[in-house]
């Protein structure tokens, strides 16, 4: 869609939409760049406070994925005037709590009357220009580390019809509400070559974008990908969101999947994530210390793949 918009050329725009990155980055001074991002969606859980937390954590994640820190956030609110205003208050409180936890300032926002509630944030962050993490800077020899398990799309679909196990879904909700701040901090200490976060296009979609933007070949090891407990079972019950099929259709010819891959595993690889983890590309020599640093902070991270040089006649993304 964005292809139809005019290409922007301004040397101060360090990251635009051309590389399908997570946020725009604009250089203000030689030592300071601004990160801008916006994200909002319809309710994903019944509890309004938790919904606010998840929507805010999801929006803030783009700042972390670019290597920055959040500065200011503005609420984006659509809410039906006939619903109890107490619900809206709880949503906003959930969001505000996450912005505060992120060390940012919630400075206002805009709301409109709409039939279906929607909530999210526009966030401004800052980063040193030389410390920007793009998805276009992964290099052969890197190892890919994922900082949250996948499977939120299956759980949100199952939860709509009360088919998700309460205990398993609670784990998923905690993960969705968790900021990617600590993961970003650990990666900053160790040093990453590239980063993105895993959201609506699923693990495959975002890994492919990174491979394409960086012009590298990525190998993902299926057995190494962390999954939420119970997610495979939900896929086997056919509780697969429509977006999974769209994600797979758009990549079918561009990704090589292992022969005989069970449908449930394929459904997880393309499962759209809400407030997913960071995908960090780090030099192999640093990967052990990164994993240790992440685990020390209680983050369930895993090395899931390797970055290689592009091979002629081979797709940019291979799952083994």
């Amino acid at each position, binding site marked *: 869609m964005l292809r139809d918009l005019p290409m922007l050329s301004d040397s101060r725009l360090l990251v635009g939409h051309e590389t399908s990155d997570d946020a725009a980055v604009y250089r203000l001074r030689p030592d300071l760049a601004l990160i801008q991002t916006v994200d909002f969606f319809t309710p994903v859980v019944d509890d309004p406070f938790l919904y606010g937390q998840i929507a805010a954590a999801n929006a803030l994640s783009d700042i972390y994925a670019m290597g920055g820190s959040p500065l200011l956030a503005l609420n984006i609110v659509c809410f039906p005037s006939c619903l109890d205003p107490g619900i809206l208050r709880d949503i906003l409180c959930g969001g505000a709590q996450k912005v505060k936890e992120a060390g940012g300032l919630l400075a206002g926002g805009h709301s409109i009357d709409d039939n279906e509630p929607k909530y999210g944030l526009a966030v401004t962050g800052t980063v040193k220009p030389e410390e920007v993490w793009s998805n276009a800077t992964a290099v052969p020899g890197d190892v890919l580390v994922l900082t949250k398990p996948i499977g939120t799309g299956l759980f949100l679909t199952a939860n709509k019809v009360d088919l998700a196990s309460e205990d398993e879904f609670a784990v998923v909700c905690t993960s969705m509400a968790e900021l990617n701040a600590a993961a970003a901090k650990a990666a900053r200490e160790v040093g990453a070559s590239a980063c993105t976060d895993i959201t609506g296009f699923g693990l495959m979609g975002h890994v492919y974008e990174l491979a394409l933007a960086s012009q590298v070949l990525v190998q993902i090891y299926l057995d190494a990908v962390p999954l939420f407990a119970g997610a495979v079972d939900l896929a*086997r*019950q056919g509780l697969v969101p429509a977006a999974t099929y769209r994600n797979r259709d758009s990549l079918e010819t561009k990704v090589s999947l292992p022969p005989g891959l069970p449908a449930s595993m394929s459904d997880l690889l393309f499962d759209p994530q809400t407030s997913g983890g960071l995908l960090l590309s780090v030099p192999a020599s640093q990967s052990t210390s990164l994993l240790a640093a992440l685990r020390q902070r209680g983050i369930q991270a895993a090395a899931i793949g390797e970055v290689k040089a592009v091979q002629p006649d081979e797709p940019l993304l291979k799952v083994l």
Partner: protein
Amino acid sequence: MDTELRVDARGLACPLPVVKTKKAIENIDSGKVVAIVDNTVARDNIMKLAQGLSLPVDVVADGTDFILSIMKGGGVAVAEPETGSEAAVLPERSGKNVVILFQADTIGRPEQELGDVLAKSFLYALTECTPTPRTLIFLNGGVRLTCTGSEALPSLKTLEVQGVEILSCGTCLDYLELKGELEVGTVSNMFSIIEKLMAADKVITVG
């Protein structure tokens, strides 16, 4: 003779088609569940469900629809009431074939406002009851309950997910000019309504 349960999931948003099919499979000991869907996501999800349960599934395209036939229990026949209908259904293991007939969108007289509240709370209470009735039939003004603006829609949609068949009289929808407003269940005609009533173990009339 094999049991056959039919699930018409056309027009339903994901994941309701797969949920309705799952309920139907759970409601029979053996036999066939035939699901009709109108999109590939629902088709693929129901195929996954069947494969996940290790049940054979057969798919045919019918115009823009897909008809999925799922076999359960190796075709072992189960006793069932003779209804003469191709889509004969088996009573739920836990209960009888109960049909509830709504003749109005309100319950009792003379207080109209009170009657509206009663109809809404009746349907809500039904969502909490087990076993659920097999079928709800809406006649005359009763069809207002299944159309846009009805406060009972959330309860009716829950019942539908639970596997309850919801039928609204087509003539009544026409007469009240509500044809495009149906929000839950399917449009039915007098023949199949009579068939449901005759096959029932018990009919409860409300209105």
